[in-house]
């Protein structure tokens, strides 16, 4: 029986390069208008998983992502870096899901992959900065959680030992498996792509992607079954649609405003003694200073 590690990874819009058309009128994100990247802390999560795998000889790392068809990109990226297998959860019915609905869908997929030993997610995704999906998925799967994992410290019998990074310090904790870890950005950076693995997996595709490809590809797949990226829909997961998408999401966006700072009435001063002394005098007289 293998030691199964499932990594939750998300493709996110690069919020460091946000333009005007980034939001749709219904308040959801217009992902098409933004470059999509591997959520940074999910790369830390992948590395964490690979380190656990390296520490034993019976482990496999499965990458699980929920998103639009192009999220298959991050599965390939994970395969290049050392993951063994990938699953893409994709369905229009997921659109508009908040963290509760997302974690519901993820928990169903994880349960379908049972038996598993570790679930590893990033601490938070840079599109929402919520840090909620990890703990919510743990609750829905029915397993404990260890948040802000920074370092894998090995096993003590069946228990995993982890160092956690907190606001003002660190904690060393131990838990029985299965347990869900969320990994902090201070954990080790992810190893780079491996050239051999890139050669091996660059043709890995999901069903949706295969539809656009030639017959030759199908033949290739028959001889190399590992090139198939598994794809699950709402039906495959047996999900209750009322728990998904906008209807399954308790939080609604009422209003979105872009941040525009109005110009205050301000005084411009030079660095002359006269200007500086004048300012200081005003501040002292008005009791802001002194």
């Amino acid at each position, binding site marked *: 029986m293998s030691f199964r590690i499932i990594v939750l990874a998300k493709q996110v819009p690069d*919020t460091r390069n*946000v333009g005007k058309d980034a939001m749709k009128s219904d308040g959801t994100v217009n992902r098409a208008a933004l470059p999509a990247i591997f959520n940074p802390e999910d790369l830390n999560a992948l590395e964490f998983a690979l380190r656990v795998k390296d520490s034993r000889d019976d482990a496999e790392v499965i990458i699980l992502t929920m998103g639009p068809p192009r999220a298959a990109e991050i599965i390939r990226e994970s395969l290049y870096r050392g993951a063994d297998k990938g699953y893409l959860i994709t369905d229009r019915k997921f659109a508009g899901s908040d963290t509760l609905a997302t974690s519901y869908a993820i928990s169903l997929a994880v349960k379908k992959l049972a038996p598993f030993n570790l679930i590893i997610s990033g601490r938070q995704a840079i599109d929402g900065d919520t840090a909620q999906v990890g*703990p919510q998925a743990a609750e829905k799967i029915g397993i404990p*959680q260890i948040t802000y994992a920074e370092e894998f410290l090995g096993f003590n019998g069946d228990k995993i030992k982890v160092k956690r990074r907190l606001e003002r310090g660190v904690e060393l904790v131990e838990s029985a498996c299965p347990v869900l870890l969320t990994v902090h950005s201070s954990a080790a950076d992810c190893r780079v792509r491996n050239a051999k693995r890139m050669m091996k997996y660059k043709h890995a595709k999901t069903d949706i992607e295969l539809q656009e490809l030639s017959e030759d590809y199908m033949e290739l797949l028959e001889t190399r079954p590992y090139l198939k990226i598994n794809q699950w829909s709402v039906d495959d997961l047996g999900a209750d649609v009322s728990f998904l998408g906008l209807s399954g999401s*308790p939080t609604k966006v*009422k209003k979105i405003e872009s941040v525009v700072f109005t110009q205050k009435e301000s005084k411009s001063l030079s*660095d002359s003694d006269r200007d500086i002394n004048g300012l200081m005098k005003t501040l002292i007289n008005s009791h*802001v200073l002194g």
Partner: protein
Amino acid sequence: MKNVFVYCEITEEGHIADVSLELCSKGRKLADELNVDIEAVVIGTKLKGIQEELSPFGVDKVYIAEDKRLFPYTTLPHAAIFSKLLEEQQADVVLVGATSIGRDLAPRVASTLRCGLTADCTSLEIGDHYVKKTDTTYKNLLYQIRPAFGGNIVATIINPDMHPQMATVREGVMKKEPVRRKKLAELINIDVKKYVSDSDFVVNIIERHIEAQKVNIKGAQIIVAGGYGVGSKKNFNLLYQLADAIGGEVGATRAAVDAGYEEHERQIGQTGVTVRPKLYIACGISGAVQHRAGMDQSAQIISINTDLEAPITNIADYNINGRLEDVLPKMLKYFKQNSK
């Protein structure tokens, strides 16, 4: 019952964390507007005196769950107690600090209760919501207002149907304001065994190294903050000299922290602390939106910058066009000569 609930975090020193007191203050105001009570939940060990600590902030009721296994915090026992209590009491609004603990606890609890949760709110208000399609008006919802998308937008989130409405808020965002009231909060001791089972203690803490908070820039009335334009760790001494003289604290931008000029504890902004001093002196700070998110509520802002086009100039009351190396010593000199 529809009351407002606040999860109160316990510090290493055994007191209620500042962020929780800030939320009690905010919760008091929300409860007044909704015409309901505010109730605090404290989970830990050695909780004597907690009732007295909380009462000045206008809390009506304090639930205490005391057991030596409940400190230090671990997720499952705290989540079990808090979620069962919220369910029993039919809480309507639930506030939790956006700390390491709060952000571990709140999502777990929200998942159990199947309710919405909005992380890192910067403002909370009460308001109505009208849905055209069904012609229904939801009265008195909690507007959960937060920056999103790396601070580029501000979103108002609501939970119309599935309650409670849960939100986390960072330390320093709300104001800690005692109310004038002599009444002691009603105390209710929880029978811990009814709420947690032994299997909730699966995660064991083997070792901890937690430092007490060293600097408190959040509470400072005057802040002299430095950015990447300060240029070096050594140059930050100019800021310390002025801050010491005028009774202020030194803050920094992320660029200054990343460059190693300052420690992370002093970082102000979206990923640092939020401050609202009566005077903010920004030295060599361009005023990126993520930085402004943590300081734009300062009563007065002075900017010292060589670039008069920097975004900070839009929110500053005084813009000094110059090098901080020249300006700061002049300010210090004048103050030393002229303050009583």
